[in-house]
């Protein structure tokens, strides 16, 4: 309980004017945990990462890693940190392997080498193999995904205590994303603390124990992943065998017509592009087994799951309350209701 958090934001604020920046961020990340930082583009994820890396100084408050101020003590902080920038910008004139060797040498030159150089090089080789990376090409000629792999290897090869990963799977194909997820799980098992930003819930869902929601520069909530997973709504596009069957479904669920009655856990959100009235879009909160059992009574031609947009997820979890004093005190609205239902 008294253990110092591996990473903390204590009222960290960086105001760029016109509502841009991050405001009064409060967050503690325990050692050995994997926390996702979820927000839309421009919500302030990268600004937060830069504060944690000591690249920018908060206007107010502080960002700390292992109890050290990230701006003031950045050289000491960075001995413990592996960083994957949001915009991968490795020097384009170097080959991948030259860049990785350069980064190894740069760390070895430092005051503190957490792991011996040989260990770093061995780990580099493992990671290169794991991601099927050919590091011999010049970085300037690599595809976006390949550059991302180079950046991932650079971030992980030092086996750091803390990993700061800004949109880590951007540009990776699904197979490589899966390997990345495995890697993060292994790092957690090793005891590393991982702070991972993303604008895609599934990426965070697969890797993280907790998730902090960021909206317009404010942390609006920090939740356990299991609770979010249980509470979040899923949207399904059902295509019935014919229009009559779709009509029968609709008639059987009058309570689900938009706007959904409070607490029914199901909404029929019919989009305009449905083919010949055969399709319905249905949003289901909480567990889906009841929905599936019920659906089995109908002649269904196709069933597709759609990802909920972040905006919808925020609305679903927190209602339309103002983002100002977000805080970390748990979800309201849908989630609370859902937990009661369980």
């Amino acid at each position, binding site marked *: 309980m008294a253990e110092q958090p591996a990473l903390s934001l204590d009222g960290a604020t960086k105001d760029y004017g016109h509502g841009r920046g991050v405001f009064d961020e409060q967050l503690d990340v325990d050692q050995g945990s994997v926390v996702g930082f979820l927000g839309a583009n421009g919500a302030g994820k990268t600004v937060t990462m830069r504060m944690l890396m000591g*690249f920018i100084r908060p206007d107010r408050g502080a960002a700390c890693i292992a109890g050290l101020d990230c701006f003031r003590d950045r050289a000491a902080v960075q001995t413990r940190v592996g960083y994957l920038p949001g915009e991968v910008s490795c020097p384009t004139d170097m080959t991948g392997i030259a860049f990785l060797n350069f980064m190894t040498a740069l760390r070895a030159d430092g005051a503190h080498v957490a792991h011996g150089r040989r260990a770093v090089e061995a780990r580099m080789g493992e990671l290169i193999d794991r991601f099927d990376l050919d590091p011999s090409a010049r970085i300037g000629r690599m595809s976006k995904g390949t550059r991302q792999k180079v950046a991932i290897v650079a971030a992980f090869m030092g086996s750091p205590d803390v990993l700061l990963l800004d949109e880590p799977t951007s540009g990776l194909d699904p197979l490589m994303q899966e390997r990345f997820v495995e890697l993060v799980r292994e790092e957690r098992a090793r005891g590393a603390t991982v702070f991972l930003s993303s604008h895609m819930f599934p990426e965070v869902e697969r890797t993280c124990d907790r998730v902090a929601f960021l909206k317009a520069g404010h942390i609006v909530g920090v939740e356990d992943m299991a609770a979010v997973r249980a509470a979040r709504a899923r949207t399904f596009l059902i295509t019935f065998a014919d229009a009559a069957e779709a009509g029968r479904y609709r008639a059987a669920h009058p309570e689900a017509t938009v706007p959904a009655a409070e607490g029914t856990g199901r909404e029929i959100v019919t989009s305009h592009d449905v083919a010949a009235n055969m399709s319905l879009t249905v949003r289901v909160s909480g567990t889906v087994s009841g929905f599936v059992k019920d659906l089995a009574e109908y002649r269904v031609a196709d069933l597709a799951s759609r990802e909920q947009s972040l905006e919808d997820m925020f609305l679903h979890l927190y209602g339309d309350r103002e983002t100002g004093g977000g805080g970390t005190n748990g979800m309201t609205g849908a989630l609370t209701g859902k937990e009661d239902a369980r």
Partner: protein
Amino acid sequence: MIAALYARGAKTSLIPTVIIAAVLAMYTTLITALYDPDASAALDAMMKTMPGLFDAFGMGDDTTTLMGFLLNYLYGFLYVLFPLVLILLLVHRLVIRPIDRGSMAYLLASPHRRGAVVGTLAAVMLTMLAALMVFLTVLEFGTAAVLFPDEQLGIGLLRVNAGLSALWLCMAGLSLLSACAFRDAAPALWAGGGFVIVEFVAQMVAQAGDRFKDIRYATFLTLFDRYGLADGDGTAIWQAVALAVVGVASLAAAMTAFVRRDLEV
């Protein structure tokens, strides 16, 4: 000093340095070879036809000795402008472009103090300038020894080159300060580089005729008094020391700016 970064910076800087060194080597040997004590009358005659133009480029002075000839044709324009181009190229490659493109993030993410990072990059630039100076000095003495064994360049030229080094240091300091102080790439390059170019143009105008000669007090380039240095004049030496002090102070200010600023990389 970070050895790995120094090696990488030196590699990045080598090509522009070699190109500028090659251009200046060409001019140095060409101009030395053009010196002909007997033909100076003809050159003087040409100068008299376009006095303003030669003066503007700092080439309107006594050319009856090899020393005077070199000071006139190399040190007023070529040995100032080309090194400035090199300084701007190096500052761009080492500092401005990595910040602009974001690759500076990797240097900042390494466990080194920012002062060590920018100090190493400054050391790379100063090494290149020092190498260029040594190369040109050796070339001047070598060419003169081969072509005009009777002419003495001696300690006077070494004093001039030491003063020129102070001028280069000053230009490098101002350019690095601008690179470290400004957030966007264009002002980072052109606030410092543009300032030196404006000062350079002011010096050309001041040299062009008596009407504008007072402008020389408005440009720091005047502090580099090549004829005074050649003669061992005390004021000229103090002026060169002042240039070096401004250079060192600008470098220190550049490092401080780099350490304190926000780097959005």
